[in-house]
């Protein structure tokens, strides 16, 4: 008998994909561990790479920038996205058109968002300086991407613009699952719109917002494209986030071992955050089921 017959066919179906993923993800991850504990000659150097990279002056700054940038993006994307989602759940003329328009930022490639916003932020000819000056918010042009205190908020604005439509879509999908008799009961009890938001909508979308937050966190750590093309981490490292630091260690300073050490630290931290979040949401789901 053909020996393949004795294997559960399920394994045969899933094997090719799992093999490719293992080769492309697990093997490099294992290699990261090896690289981070060795030097260019391949000799084991213990925790030297970790101490050198974590002790460098750039790392605390990059950590602070990462938390600032990712945190700022998450907060504003969630708030704006929730408002937009609630808005799209209501009936008004032109709702379909607004929904399509809101998709645009999410669909536009990150690199295109970066070039377009860089042009809009342009010091001399940028439309943003012009608009803000003509309505009197600022009285002279601002160097949005070259001023230490402005660069992170400016980049957060771009990322929020790109991400809030995704939050809005997820919130909308979740809101549409609410039983409309709930609203009617609330109406009978004399509930105002705000009460509906507070006691019906927000509790219902909370789990979705939790998973969206996790996704935004992960995408934030992946979001090298916008910052790298708009500022390259500057001015004076004020917009340098950890993924860009890893990238620069590896491909500008060609120190693969320090880069690997930093990657490993970042990976472990993120992994713990992800598992914690998944465990919390699982627990919540269990308690709801009971």
């Amino acid at each position, binding site marked *: 008998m053909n020996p393949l017959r004795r294997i559960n066919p399920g394994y045969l179906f899933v094997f090719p*994909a799992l093999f490719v993923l293992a080769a492309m993800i697990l093997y490099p991850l294992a290699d990261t561990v090896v690289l981070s504990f060795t030097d260019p000659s391949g000799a084991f150097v213990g925790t030297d790479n970790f101490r050198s990279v974590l002790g460098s002056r750039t790392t605390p700054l990059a950590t602070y920038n990462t938390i600032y940038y990712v945190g700022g993006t998450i907060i504003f994307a969630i708030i704006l996205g929730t408002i937009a989602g609630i808005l799209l759940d209501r009936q008004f003329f032109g709702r379909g058109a607004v929904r399509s328009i809101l998709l645009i930022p999410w669909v536009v490639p990150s690199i295109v968002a970066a070039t377009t916003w860089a042009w809009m932020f342009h010091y001399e*000819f940028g439309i943003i300086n012009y608009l803000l000056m003509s309505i009197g918010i600022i009285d002279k042009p601002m160097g949005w991407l070259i001023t230490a205190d402005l660069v992170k908020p400016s980049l957060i604005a771009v990322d929020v613009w790109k991400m809030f439509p995704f939050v809005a879509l997820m919130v909308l999908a979740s809101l549409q699952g609410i039983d409309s008799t709930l609203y009617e009961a609330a109406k009978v009890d004399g509930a105002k*719109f705000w009460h509906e938001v507070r006691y019906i909508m927000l509790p219902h979308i909370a789990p979705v917002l939790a*998973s969206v937050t996790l996704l935004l966190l992960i995408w934030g750590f992946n979001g090298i494209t916008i910052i790298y093309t708009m500022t390259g981490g500057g001015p004076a490292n004020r917009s340098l986030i950890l993924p860009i630091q890893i990238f620069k260690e590896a491909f500008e300073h060609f120190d693969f071992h320090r880069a690997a050490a930093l990657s490993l630290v970042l990976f472990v931290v993120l992994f713990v955050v992800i598992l914690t979040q998944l465990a919390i949401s699982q627990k919540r789901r269990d308690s709801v089921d009971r």
Partner: protein
Amino acid sequence: MSIAKPRGSIFSYVLAAIFSVVAIFPFLWMALSSVKPLQELYSVPPTWIPSHFSLENYVNVLYHSNIPRYFLNSVVISVGSTSIALILAILAAYGFARFRFRGRNALQASILISQLLPTATIIVPLYVILSNLGLINTYIGLIMTYLIHTLPLCVWLLISYFRSIPYEIEEAALIDGASRLTILWKIVLPLSVPGIISTVVYCFVSTWNEFIFALVFATDSSVKTLPVGLAEFSAEFKTDWGAVMAASIIMTLPIIILFFAIQRMFVSGITAGATKG
């Protein structure tokens, strides 16, 4: 009696208008800038509607730059990676959706989790591996690399799609002696066309837009993709923002067309996958 959703007030319209303007403005500004002649692009105050409609920027991009070549590279790499991912993912998703075997849930969960891995954590060893294999600056190197993004996503989307197809149809065919592969090919796939289309579009878009792997693994202009080309273009032609905007439009158009062609299907597919997961 019909059950009406809450009606929008004046406030809803104001809010909808603000959101729409914010969402569409950068895109409109990019389009307007791309058809402005040079002296108008750099005028203070800026003009809203170009007084002279000019295709000069597009001519520059299409005939005097590498952008057309990068466009071709992007097409080859995105189509290649999406096709491989789709074939592997159809098999895997069918396996996960229709068979019981030991470790199934753990393997399925690990595929989901692998999608959450930040690019930065594996880019260094991948570079070492690809250069040892001589795959830096090749199409195949990037096609393989992009499977990291596309494959988990395809499996994820297709599992939920296959599960929604009633199993009774397949049972009937099994009793008639059809093999599993025949059933997959002749019964399941034809029923899954909408799911497969949205999966393909999502994969295509994510590879089309990918920047950081391409920046590192494709440094030669024979394999550079559009995002890398665009970044280079905006650094190289620091003064020629009109050409940069034209190139941005050229890169964005295929994506916008794809998305709006299948918008309804796409949105429901993604949200279904995400809320279930």
